[in-house]
């Protein structure tokens, strides 16, 4: 009962304050602005990529008649999918390549990161709903809450409250509840309005669930800051000092920790340079069949084995076109090598993210940042999922061409061609993105840690309140 009374009283006094009204107004304006910017960004990027994908496929279908293997060299483009929730949190979107060229024999790197086309000043930040909720909203809480307990102490109320037999725990929970309600009064409308991007007809249901989880993550994160504000407010005697201390914490958690942790992670688990990466790939490639080099060591070995298997003495007496066969064997080897090294790279990224998750002990911002990206599909895993799918498609498409070469062309016939009808019948790139289960699996660690932060900070708050001195 006391809890409810305290909460009601707290809420009432906060809402009445001018600083709540001003801060809420400013924050709402920024949030509205961020939604407007994000909406346009998302809608135009989505349109661009859908259109580009259509054109690229059209170009493939209508290419000039050519040999299937020449078509493999001609190649085609696929474009990074744009997920509905990227309007809310762009995550790493601007820092990953948007276009991927698929061709025979090699796995290319995605090109054209959006950030590269912007000047250096774009590095100073973009206004997105995630930025407003993750970086600015905590400040709002600090401004509301810094004197929650110091204020009571300074005007002598704390002594009265404790003398009346109010349990410190009740004080903490009540104050937390009151503050929490004040936060919710702004955060809930934000999150509701923020779901506007999901209203498009083609949005799958899973994105609603993802958004629900994201919203929950942000609320828990804001709850962490409510706890922090209460703790500092209880520990520090003067409201001024509490404010400065909380602002210092915010700078440390939201500004310094993410960059510092990312730098540290990169030095601790360095990613390879291009030359060492390519060298390793090349070394592995050489230990297998090269479709364009029938006289190579591994090609010869494969030749011996195949001839023996079919009981013939030369490759032109094989029941299929040896060129197409060896081309496909080479492709299979190449893609195995490429994917192996990509996976190794992803493992390094995961180690780096492990550092970020450890550093989250210092900053819940890192956790909400990771969770939000992972749920929005603008994180490293989702991106790699796309790259892997594109690679799989590349192998299938090239496989289709090699298979045609193997079965329908004579050995040594490089002049024979295929026409548009054939190319139009080739497999199309259809990619859905990771499903909800995968997204949940990836984002679970950071979500769990975030919940842990909330509970732990609450627990510490209770402990500290137990020892509170009235003056």
């Amino acid at each position, binding site marked *: 009962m006391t809890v409810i009374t305290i909460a009601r009283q707290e809420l009432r006094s906060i809402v009445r304050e001018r600083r709540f009204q001003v801060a809420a107004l400013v924050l709402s304006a920024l949030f509205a602005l*961020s939604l407007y*910017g994000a909406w*346009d*960004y998302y809608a*135009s990027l989505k349109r*661009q*990529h859908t*259109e*580009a*994908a259509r*054109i*690229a496929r059209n*170009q493939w279908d*209508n*290419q*000039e008649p050519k040999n299937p293997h020449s078509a493999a060299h001609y190649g085609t*483009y696929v474009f990074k999918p744009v997920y509905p929730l990227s309007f809310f949190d762009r*995550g790493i979107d*601007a*820092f990953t390549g*948007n*276009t991927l060229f698929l061709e025979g024999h090699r796995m290319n*790197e995605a*090109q*054209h990161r*959006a*950030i590269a*086309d*912007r*000047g*250096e*000043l*774009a*590095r*100073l*930040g*973009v*206004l997105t709903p995630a930025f407003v909720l993750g970086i*600015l909203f905590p400040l709002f809480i600090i*401004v509301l809450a810094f004197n929650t307990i110091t204020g009571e102490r300074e005007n002598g109320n704390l002594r009265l409250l404790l003398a009346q037999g109010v349990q410190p725990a009740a004080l903490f929970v009540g104050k937390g509840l009151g503050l929490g309600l004040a936060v919710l009064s702004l955060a809930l409308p934000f999150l509701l309005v923020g779901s506007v991007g999901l209203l498009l007809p083609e949005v799958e249901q899973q994105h609603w669930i993802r958004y629900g989880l994201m919203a929950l993550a942000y609320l828990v994160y804001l709850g962490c800051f409510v706890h922090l504000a209460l703790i500092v407010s209880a520990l520090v005697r003067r409201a*001024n000092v509490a404010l400065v201390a909380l*602002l210092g914490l915010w700078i440390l958690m939201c*500004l*310094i920790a*993410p960059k510092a942790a*990312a*730098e540290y*992670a*990169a030095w601790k688990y360095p*990613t*390879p*340079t*291009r*030359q060492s*990466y390519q060298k390793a790939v090349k070394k592995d490639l050489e230990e297998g069949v090269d479709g364009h080099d029938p006289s190579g060591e591994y090609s010869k070995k494969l030749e011996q084995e195949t001839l023996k298997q079919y009981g013939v003495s030369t490759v032109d007496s094989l029941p299929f076109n040896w060129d197409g066969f060896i081309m496909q064997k080479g492709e299979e080897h190449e893609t195995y090598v490429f994917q192996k090294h990509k996976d190794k790279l992803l493992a*390094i*990224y995961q180690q*780096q993210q492990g550092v970020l998750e450890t550093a989250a002990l210092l900053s819940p911002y890192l956790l909400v940042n990771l969770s939000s990206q992972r749920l929005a599909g603008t*994180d*490293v895993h989702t991106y790699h999922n796309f790259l892997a799918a594109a690679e799989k498609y590349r192998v299938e498409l090239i496989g289709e061409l090699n298979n045609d070469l193997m079965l329908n062309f004579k050995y040594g016939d490089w002049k024979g061609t295929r026409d548009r009808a054939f190319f139009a019948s080739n497999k199309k790139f259809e990619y859905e993105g990771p499903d909800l289960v995968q997204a949940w699996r990836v984002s679970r660690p950071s979500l769990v840690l975030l919940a842990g932060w909330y509970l732990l900070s609450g627990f510490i708050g209770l402990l500290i309140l137990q020892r509170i001195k009235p003056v």
Partner: protein
Amino acid sequence: MFALQLQYEWKHLLRSPVSWLLILFLGAAMAFGAYNGRKHVTHRQASIAELQQAQAEKFTALATEADSIIKGLKKTDRWWLDPTNPLAIGALRRGGGTLVLKPTPEQALATGMSDLQPEAFILRIGEQHPHNSSDYDNPARLALGAFDLAFVIVYLLPLFVIAFTYNLLSGEREQGTLALLLSQPVEARQVFVFKLVARFVWLSLLIAVLWWPAAAWAGIPASVTAQALGVALLYNLFWFLLSLAINLTWQQGSAFNALAGIGAWLMLVVIMPAVVNMLAEKARPVPSRASYENDLRELDNQLEKERPALLDAYYAANPQLERKPDEEKTSRDLWLESFYIGDILKERASRVKAEYNEKVQHHADLVRQLMLLSPALAVYDRLTALAGTNRATQLAIQTQLEAKEHKWSEWFKSRYIANQPLSSADYPVIQAMVAPLEQKPAAYDHRGLLWLCVHLVLAVLPMALLRRQAAVLI
């Protein structure tokens, strides 16, 4: 008396544990920023040295092999591996020359766009292919941004200044020393002005003392260190004036001043840059690179269709060459044709590229105009210009690169056309064509500095307006 004030302010500074904490904080941040900047540059240098060495070894081996082939000591049955064949070295994927971009030590100052910049380009006939290690960098790390010296100046320095100035006047009043000060037999305004100047002098000196060793450790050349310090001190002056204006305008308590200072910082340093980028995105959107790729591809297709007509023109212009039916064309005929078609393609592609680049430039121009909205943007702009990690420097490098690629292409093409095999004597010439490019910072247009001065004037203005009020207060 000014000396006395200086002395007093110095003692005041030394005796407060909070100021020590702040100094420690700024010093540590600068050290970490310097460490990261330094590491960034040395990492790049190491990777480039590796590339250069590999290339030197490769060319030496090729030169020796070419020598043996010419002397008839060695035979080669694979033309694409033959070091005397201009195409094998100048045009094929296995060949090509690696032109490295040497990072300058001043890059340690501000990462800017350098974390996406390729460390080298591979030149082949008609193309320059980026050799980019950042393809393998964790994009999540890139997105979180670098903790470099520029970050310390742009983001953390204002906080440091606010912490030292928020109670400049309000503190005196709150401690009760203001009344004492006013009862002294000296003119109050003079005391007051001296106090401000003394505080500013110490603050600037502190920044300089912390800055110099950090920048030196990062390996930044002294002239750039000095210029960057100049910018930092102007920025310091801006925040000092702003904090003072807050002190004078509202004449509230220290807590209010601190909050207003942080509010101003939040608005100018955190929110404004984000808003500026958003506005520029709206007003002058950057064109889609997805459609750019499709457009380039469309050019390819178009050229494929026009090929017979283009070849008619080619053979008409070169009557000395015999035009054969497609089945009888030798690889030499096809290569010569491809040089011709390649030039046309390049010319047309450069038009498409220019069209896109122009739009990108429009966007960048607008962002730089909007620098007026925040001194943080102006300072960052100046620092990246000093470091040579801004867009302007990248564009300058791109121009140099195109010239190098052109030279490379023409040289190899002429050798092939003239049927002159490469000899070991040619390899030093080839190597000279891919001599490293220095990433010298591009010329600076002073717009950022200009805007910063405008900000300074804007920060002084309220004080001039408030002279009367200030007089009352004092």
